[in-house]
């Protein structure tokens, strides 16, 4: 039995109409459905019982606060939603509730004098990136879904996505402060307006990487990061193992950490290079992108990387000076997933395997053999493999035939997340891009123990005594 009372959507609408303007409320059936889907709906359609009562698209912190006060006092679940692109199931709901869509929380002020930018959580990441680039700044958030992903979700997950952590860090390293609305409706300011960040307890850190469990972020203050000069390189091999060893060397020999260091296995490299009109690579490859304050610095870093990578005797490792060539190579990486999907006439299941430096070679082998022993994954065969090898992350991809029944597609996802958990447990790692809960909750419990999970629940209860905010994230 649900811990929440059942409500009539009409009465919720009428009640909210008293405290919120009509234009921020949507009762449309199709809008409610669309706000309850995630990228894995192909494996399980939502049921009519799961359609949210209402979609609310507040335009200000005050409106968010009004909504939360109402939801808290009536014990109605509220699901905070950006673009719904979560790949670990955080934007899938199993209770009836209200969707709080953040798309209209979209202020953006670049405050050069202070050295920070303030923005709402509803922007698409790409939009913020473009606005900052116009002013000569760099946004250290680079998800594959940059065109659609909303920046609030990225901050809640504390992910820089494709970037190498040891070069770029995590969003938490750049966020100076936040405004957040608690599940009870109170508004909280955290952090500082100074570039000198708070020492000691800073509630900012509860929300950045808080998986959306503790409050609704309504404004983010982030340090401005000046733009960089860039240099690029690529290495080809006939075997993936030397490439993994080369990445280990980058760390062990103190080579300058690149901004990006990406891996494509042979199949992915050949499909995506062909699409971009590049010569077919002989096997797997890595591509890397270094940054510096000057072109000389960036070039120096790339040369250092090439030198270190060459010690593993790849077929070729080189700096790329032709920007057009680099753009095509980078596009090949970016278009890898769509084109392997389309070549395989299917939809994808994507997982996230994270390694340590010493285990990188073994982890690569485990990722390549991920299907082994998993009955449904074995039907598909070996996964396609690419990933941010410099950030010690692999993304094995399973292309699921589109004509498989949903239950079978669901089994692919279940087995994939189970194997992902096993491998990450083996190496003592956890996801570095996506959140820790939703589909991954069992892994969290296994990895950190019941006590840790209980503590998370108790911390949530302090912020959210009625457990109304994103309750299905901790499923």
């Amino acid at each position, binding site marked *: 039995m649900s811990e929440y009372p059942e409500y009539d959507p009409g009465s919720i609408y009428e009640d909210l109409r008293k405290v919120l303007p009509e*234009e921020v409320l*949507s009762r*449309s*059936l*199709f*809008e409610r*459905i*669309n*706000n309850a*889907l*995630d*990228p*894995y*709906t*192909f494996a399980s*359609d939502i049921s*009519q019982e799961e359609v949210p009562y209402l979609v609310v*698209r507040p335009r200000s912190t005050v409106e968010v606060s009004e909504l939360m006060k109402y939801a808290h006092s009536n014990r109605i679940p509220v699901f905070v939603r950006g*673009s*719904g*692109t979560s790949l670990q199931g955080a934007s899938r709901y199993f209770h009836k509730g209200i969707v709080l*869509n953040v*798309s*209209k929380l979209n202020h953006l002020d670049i405050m050069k004098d202070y050295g920070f930018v303030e923005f709402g959580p509803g922007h*698409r990441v*790409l939009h913020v990136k473009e606005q900052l680039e116009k002013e000569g700044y760099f946004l250290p958030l680079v998800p594959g*879904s940059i*065109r*659609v992903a909303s920046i609030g979700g990225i901050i809640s997950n504390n992910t820089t996505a494709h970037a190498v952590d040891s070069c770029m860090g995590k969003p938490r390293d750049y966020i100076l402060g936040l405004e957040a609305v608690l599940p009870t409706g109170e508004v909280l300011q955290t952090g500082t307006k100074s570039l000198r960040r708070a020492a000691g307890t800073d509630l900012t850190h509860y929300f950045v990487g808080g998986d959306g469990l503790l409050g609704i972020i309504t404004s983010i203050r982030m340090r401005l990061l000046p733009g960089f000069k860039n240099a690029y390189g690529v290495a080809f091999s006939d075997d993936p193992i030397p490439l993994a060893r080369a990445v280990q060397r980058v760390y062990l020999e103190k080579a300058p950490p690149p901004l990006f260091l990406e891996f494509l296995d042979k199949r992915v490299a050949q499909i995506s290079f062909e699409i971009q009109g590049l010569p077919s690579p002989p096997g797997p490859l890595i591509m890397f992108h270094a940054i510096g304050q000057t072109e000389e610095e960036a070039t120096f870093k790339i040369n250092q990387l090439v030198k270190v990578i060459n010690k593993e005797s790849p077929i070729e490792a080189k700096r790329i000076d032709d920007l057009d060539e680099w753009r095509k190579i980078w596009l090949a990486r970016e*278009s890898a*997933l*769509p084109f392997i*999907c*389309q070549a395989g006439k*299917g*939809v*994808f299941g994507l997982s996230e395997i994270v390694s340590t430096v010493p285990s990188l070679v073994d982890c690569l082998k485990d990722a390549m053999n991920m299907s082994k022993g998993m009955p449904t994954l074995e039907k598909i065969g070996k996964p396609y493999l690419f990933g941010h090898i410099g950030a010690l992350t692999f993304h094995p991809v399973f292309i699921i035939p*589109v*004509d498989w029944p949903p239950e079978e597609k669901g089994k692919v996802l279940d087995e994939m997340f189970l194997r992902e958990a096993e491998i990450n447990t083996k190496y003592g790692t956890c996801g570095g891009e996506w959140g820790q809960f939703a589909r991954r909750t069992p892994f969290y419990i296994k990895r950190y123990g019941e006590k840790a999970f209980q503590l998370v629940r108790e911390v949530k209860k302090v912020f959210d005594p009625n457990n109304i905010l994103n309750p299905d994230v901790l499923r």
Partner: protein
Amino acid sequence: MSEGHEMQDQDTKEQLKKDILDILAYCINCRFCLPSCPRFDITTGDISQGASGITRALYYAIKWRVTDKGILTELRDVLYSCMTCKNCEIACKNLSTGTKLIDAIERGRELLIEEMIGPMPEQKRALESLYNYGNPYGMSSLKRKSWLKGLNVTSFSKEVEVLFYVGCTAPNDFNVQNIAKGLVQLLEKAQIRFGILEDEICCGYPSLKMGERGLFEEICEKNLKQFKSLGVKRMVTLSPHCFDTFLSRYPQEAMKEIKVQHYSQFLADLINEKRIVFQKNTAKKVMYQDSCYLGRYNNIYDEPRRILKSIPGLELLEFRKCKADSLCCGGGGGRMWADFDTEVDRLAHMRVKEACEMGAEIIVTACPWCLINMVDGVKLANVEDSMKIRDLAEFCADAL
């Protein structure tokens, strides 16, 4: 209705539903299509108003066998609001699973026609007119020919080299007539032996896009019969919509003997062969509005630009979103006959504002519907004194 007919109707509906669900099985709700959807851009931010939000609405209406009239009417309003500009499909192909979203939308419209829910109320009159008069504007055959007054245009016969397929919009709209007249002037200048159909009827595009497939097939049959009896081997269309319909939607086998071109392709060839040379200096800053059905549907981006660049003195500027990224004018997919109150701006208006900001003096289009919408955009932006909208044919004729 007889029992047999009812069963046949039921089979058609079930087949359409199956087709739609099969197409949408590829969609993973990644929403990569949404930022590309112009319809989403001009509404208030509801996901169900754009691209995969529309197709997901259709998906669940079928899955849950929705019969509630109010909800189906809501579905109709979003389904018919799509411009079929194809931006979503291109985004999906480049970034995701390559789902044929427009195919699903078109079949969804057919399904709503079968269910007697579609098309939009204002579109019904266009379809009735198409059935009764062979054009969506309720034009008599006399009016259809009125634009020819003062011109020496012959009817197409076997002795004539090229069929000039005029389409329905030019004869119906005084401003658009000048496009047809301009093209006649250019063809005469190049000494092309061309003719028009004595009794031209619509290509069927509006019926196809509004979901009235039966009517489209009837029109298609009539046209093919006429083309065959007249021995048409080469056809030049004024509208990109007619062009795409003949090229891609008519039976390939029946059309294989006929070379179909949009007039911009035909003119580009004539310029290349020096059969048309522009003499007049036209020192203007011009922006070209890519038509969706020329550009994204048929990859015709260079020909219109080559033509414009061959005009002496002309400076060609580009919109920020151009070619494959170009913004639709808002007129495709049957929208010339419908208004949608969920829209907070007009695409043509946005386009005109951008052209003004970029310092353009003239926007040139190569599509009658783009022209009509852009003229409205100029009025809405209140820039009639500083911004002119011209069609490529008319503009080129003036530069001779």
